């Protein structure tokens, strides 16, 4: 009995030494890595990697489309556009179902536009379609005159597999997932066209590149495309877009404060703006 008790008590102690040694080897490996020595990365991940495993995988998986990376949008379409040629207008109660089941045709073009620099693959995530009619006061701000047959307001997200390099989050010691968020293009509006959206994607990618240069990794968690207010001088009536992006970076929490990534993002954006305004300035 006493022997069993001794073994049971000794187990945690033994584990303590194993864990200590494990931590020691990881620290040693990372030091070697930072010195630029060639080495094989530790097989066992840092403890924090285990803790945040789910969140990390949805952010940094390079193999799968995950719900952790998305471009969200809001699209308005006159209900009549949803119908096929000669198709009868359904009763008002049925319209939300029609809008829901036909939403993909209006969301997939965004997915196609993302392919290339931003995404290797993409698919539709959760979406919600609602239908507004004239005299319908559920929405206080009406961005457009509601057509007689109703206006479909479609809010949805496209999930994607990044085409850009994410960096290597596996080598970050004392890793902590840290986020930052920013209005893209200094809050400016771009035309709600394919070219306008490419401009937004390019800005988000450039900011993420800046963060990756500093921290070794970065992922664009979300780009949110919001329709801007109507413009008086809107030549083709396409409307405008404003965009917000949020980024995730895995950082060493012993080196950076909680708001360190946000501060870095602000700096990256400022220096990028300066570079655009003074293209001759070659300072890094």
């Amino acid at each position, binding site marked *: *009995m006493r022997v069993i008790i001794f073994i*049971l*008590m000794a187990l*945690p102690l033994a584990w303590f030494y194993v864990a200590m040694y494990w931590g020691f080897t990881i620290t040693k490996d990372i030091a070697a890595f930072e010195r630029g020595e060639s080495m094989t990365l530790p097989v066992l991940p840092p403890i924090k990697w285990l803790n945040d*495993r789910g969140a990390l995988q949805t952010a940094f998986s390079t193999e799968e489309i995950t719900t952790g990376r998305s471009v969200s949008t809001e699209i308005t379409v006159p209900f009549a556009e949803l119908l096929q040629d000669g198709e009868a207008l359904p009763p008002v109660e049925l319209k939300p*179902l029609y809008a829901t089941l*036909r939403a993909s045709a209006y969301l997939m073009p965004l997915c196609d536009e993302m392919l290339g620099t931003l995404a290797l*693959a993409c*698919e539709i995530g959760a979406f919600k379609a609602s239908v507004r009619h004239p005299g319908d006061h559920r929405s206080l701000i009406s961005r457009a005159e509601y057509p007689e047959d109703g206006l479909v307001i479609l809010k949805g997200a496209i999930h994607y597999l990044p085409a850009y390099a994410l960096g290597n989050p596996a080598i970050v010691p004392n890793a902590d997932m840290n986020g930052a968020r920013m209005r893209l293009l200094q809050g400016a509006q771009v035309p709600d066209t394919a070219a306008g959206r490419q401009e937004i994607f390019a800005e988000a990618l450039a900011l993420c590149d800046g963060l990756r240069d500093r921290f070794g990794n970065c992922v664009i968690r979300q780009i949110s495309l919001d329709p801007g207010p109507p413009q008086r001088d809107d030549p083709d009536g396409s409307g405008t877009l404003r965009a917000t992006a949020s980024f995730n970076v895995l950082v060493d929490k012993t080196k950076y404060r909680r708001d360190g990534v946000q501060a870095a993002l602000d700096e990256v954006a400022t220096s990028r703006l300066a570079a655009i305004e003074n293209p001759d300035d070659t300072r890094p």
Partner: protein
Amino acid sequence: MDEQQKQDFAARLQRIQAQKAEDAAEAMEAEFALPPPSENSTDGVQLPPLPPVNAGGDGSGFGPVRIGMILIVLLALVGYGAFYLLEMADDKSLLARPEASTLPIGEIAQAGDIQAPHPLLTFVVARDELGAPGRRIATDRGWEHTLGSVATPDGAQVQVTDIATGFDPSVPDEKPGKLASFAPNDTCTLRRPTDGDVVRNVRFGHATRPTQVHAFSDAGMVAALITHTNAALFNPKSYEFGLTARGRLNRVDVFVTDTSGPVYLVLQSMGGNTLWNVHRGPGVRIAHVAMIGNTSGIVVPQGVSFEALRITDFVTNFEFGSNDEIRPCMIAPYRLPKPFWEGQQKAQKGNTLFENQMYTFNAGHRAFAAWYQDALGVDPETGLTEAEGAGHALVGPVPAGPLGYRSLAGQTVYITEADHLLIGDDAVATVHRDLMLAASGGDVEAVLPPVRRVQP
């Protein structure tokens, strides 16, 4: 303090320390001593006898309590590790989210089973489970009768076999012959009982026996189908997958045996849709039937007049306190709490939740009773058969000879109008499937396009 006192004090301190050290040594030896205490004397001093080895918890030796605690801590550690392992495994399975093209849609199609419907066109028409038959169960709001147990005016326990012959509980929800819709009364005035009419009333929280009759609106169906679509596309394991509009009528067999005069029958159900299957005993005259509920259906002996009030046409707010006021058209049939209700007993013990609930029932009943008294000229507690839930109700005494039980098979059910009135669960699934096809433009595959990839 002079020198002598200081020395005395120091000497005393030394003695105390020496004694302490000795005590500690003794305690330590005692703790690990297996041989009898007599062999463990120091300096010829006899040690006090050791406590029993299995004393546990008294600070000496490893008693079962202490060993148990150590084991619990170790088990917790092992469990913690196992939790992590499981979580990691789970993460993997979650991450391996199938691509759109390999969702069950594709799997079913590839299985070569042409008959299997597309997941977006797969529906489960919900049906409540029936409890063990022939029992009544005390609930917070009175008796809940399972199949075969009858709600009676005096609260006596009666089985349906005591009243009627030919009732077969093993035959579930026979299909009626046809449905005929009628418009509910759009004013809250009921036909007044004439002189000599005996007003009898049945008031249930809900009916318990499912039927094959369904009534639902387009709006209800659209809400269910949007929920179903989201589940089918993004969360096929969710209970919302296959959801249909809830509109099944539950049925109550009403056995009228009161021969004291022409019976003016008031049938009330607070929740759900109810199909009243009215049986008339020998010598019974039924003057009129008034129904109060949501969707109401009725099977009545030929020549009996009936009307229905839809609660939601007049009472729309069921928030706390909203139905306290006595007002016109307060037709929501609240029941008066009785001392045997478990909710009432809990309220009396000071449970605030049930105090509030019983307050609502009392106040709601007071307002309902005022309307009822005004509309029919009698107190709603007179001639009352009530229950929280039941599938059979007796109006009058237990008959001397049994009545012939009449099932729904082949009968005409008169039912308050709705966008969809259907017989059979298959018909419900078909209506939902047809709407899905129409609303998707005939191609449900296009609802969720496959993953797009950069072309190599």
